[in-house]
């Protein structure tokens, strides 16, 4: 509650929060199928129909309603973003805590594997995984999740190492607390703040990567709607039907903007050291 109040007291947090909130509602409506039209029904008579009161954002080459496809696409993109960030957060936290707590050889092995993954450019690694497993929504989740796991591992391991050396951890040990108790209660709880910030920013990257993969035809497969695919399809029609490009483009941009603003605000709120220094 306190964090929510702080977010709404923060200039960019307020804007980011509202944007993300609105998108989440649209995503849920899109996933539940509560769209103005059926997103995959082709109204052949109304092909490439310009935006008007019947089709708020026009129709595409096949006569499908762009607004409805956008809603379904947001649902799709958010599903991929949330699940892939969940995968990365879970895997990264477990690996980072294990590396920090077990130390020595474990630390070395885990961090070298992360180095290998980090040496791959993110989009190439995602491309490789998607090609191996075949394109689709859940493949994107796994691919993006794996790509961002090393970042979470690093975010967790560093602070966990310094927490491990703190006196309260020694004290807990002296009182006979088990390793699992110390790791979950003392380390993990103290890592919630940096993780929250990272999760918000990672959601922005995940949306971007998902849109990129589907732009290349390797994400969600047609006829299902996805923002990247809609944008990619608009390329040959941008002069005759610019709405096909403008609406999906703006939709992707504003969603990423929302998470970036929220992430910035959370960083200011949760990590006082990052607060802007007065000039």
């Amino acid at each position: 509650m306190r964090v929510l109040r702080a977010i709404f007291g923060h200039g960019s947090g307020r804007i980011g929060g509202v944007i993300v909130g609105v998108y989440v509602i649209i995503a849920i409506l899109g996933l539940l199928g509560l769209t103005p039209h059926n997103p995959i029904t082709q109204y052949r008579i109304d092909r490439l129909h310009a935006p008007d009161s019947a089709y708020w954002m026009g129709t595409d080459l096949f006569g499908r309603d762009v607004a409805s496809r956008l809603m379904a696409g947001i649902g799709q993109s958010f599903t991929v973003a949330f699940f892939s960030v969940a995968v990365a957060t879970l895997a990264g936290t477990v690996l980072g805590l294990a590396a920090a707590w077990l130390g020595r050889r474990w630390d070395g092995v885990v961090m070298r594997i992360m180095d290998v993954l980090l040496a791959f450019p993110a989009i190439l690694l995602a491309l490789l995984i998607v090609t191996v497993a075949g394109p689709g929504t859940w493949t994107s989740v796994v691919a993006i999740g794996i790509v961002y796991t090393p970042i979470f591992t690093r975010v967790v391991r560093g602070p966990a190492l310094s927490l491990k050396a703190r006196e309260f951890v020694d004290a807990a040990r002296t009182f006979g607390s088990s390793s699992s108790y110390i790791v979950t209660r003392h380390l993990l709880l103290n890592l919630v703040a940096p993780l929250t910030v990272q999760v918000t920013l990672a959601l922005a990257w995940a949306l971007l990567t998902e849109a990129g993969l589907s732009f290349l035809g390797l994400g969600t497969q047609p006829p299902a709607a996805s923002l990247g695919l809609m944008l990619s399809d608009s390329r040959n029609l941008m002069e005759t039907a610019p709405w096909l490009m403008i609406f999906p483009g703006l939709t992707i941009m504003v969603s990423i903007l929302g998470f970036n603003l929220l992430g910035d605000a959370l960083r200011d709120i949760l990590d006082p050291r990052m607060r802007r220094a007065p000039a």
Partner: protein
Amino acid sequence: MNYLMRRLAAFPLVLLGVSILVFVAIRMVPGDSITAMLGTEAGLLTPAQRDALAAYFGIDQPWFVQYWRWIGGILHGNFGISVTYGRPVLDVILERFPLTLELAVLSMVIALAVGMPAGIFAATHNEKPSDLGVRVVAMIGQSTPSFVLGLLIIYTLSAGFGVLPAMGEFAPLWQDPLRNLSQLILPAVTLGFAFAASVTRISRSAMLDVLSDDYVRTARSKGASARSVIWRHALPNALIPVVTLSGIEFGYLLGGAVIVEQIYALPGLGRMVLDAIQQRDYALVQGSVLFVAFNFMIVNLLVDLAYVALDPRIRLGEQ
């Protein structure tokens, strides 16, 4: 020096990991490379011809023999033969790399030339309307995916001015510099925009941190001019985060900008890898991923070394 040696010693280990990962991953792609290469014509091959082709590309052996041969070849500078191009992998990579390198350099130049002055301006006008303006533009820039911006640029040019970006046959820099620049400037702006936004944000916050430091206050109270305080005292210390960010971004750009290359139809490294993955061109995927990872590690190392040059107090490798 010790630090440098230790970092260099870790190179082979990480590259070995990358090589195993990419070797295994590309072999898990369903389908075989000969069918992918010849398409429907593969059906016309007799089993003997197919075996001969497989033997030529070395893909008839068990995986561990293939891996061993591949690694052994690399140590002798031989990255294998690309199934799609029928030429040595290294030649194909080195043919595509100049474009990718040039695009990365151009984007970085744009990003630094726009981002740093904007960030410094915002920091010295902290909390004023002009600072807010810069921050809003930077935030929007950072949230604009390159493919959205690329399409918007093409649309604006074609709908507004009736021109299309220079495409067609790519002209290397050393053959036709003018045509080369006209082909690369829009892709570089597309990539450089978000990059510039990040540079603006990080140089603004680094500058604000430094401007509140005691030594800057001392310089000011001793009567140093605003210009001298910013350029001589504050900027060198605010550069470290900018160098880190630019280095990482540059390293990623050297891996090829798949989507921007796709939008502007540029024959860069990124598109080549994408095609190679889809064609199951084992040797080309393996070679190029290793090449990209190596570049990325070199750039990261250079970034670390740049810290020392910028701040002699930093001793690398110490906790």
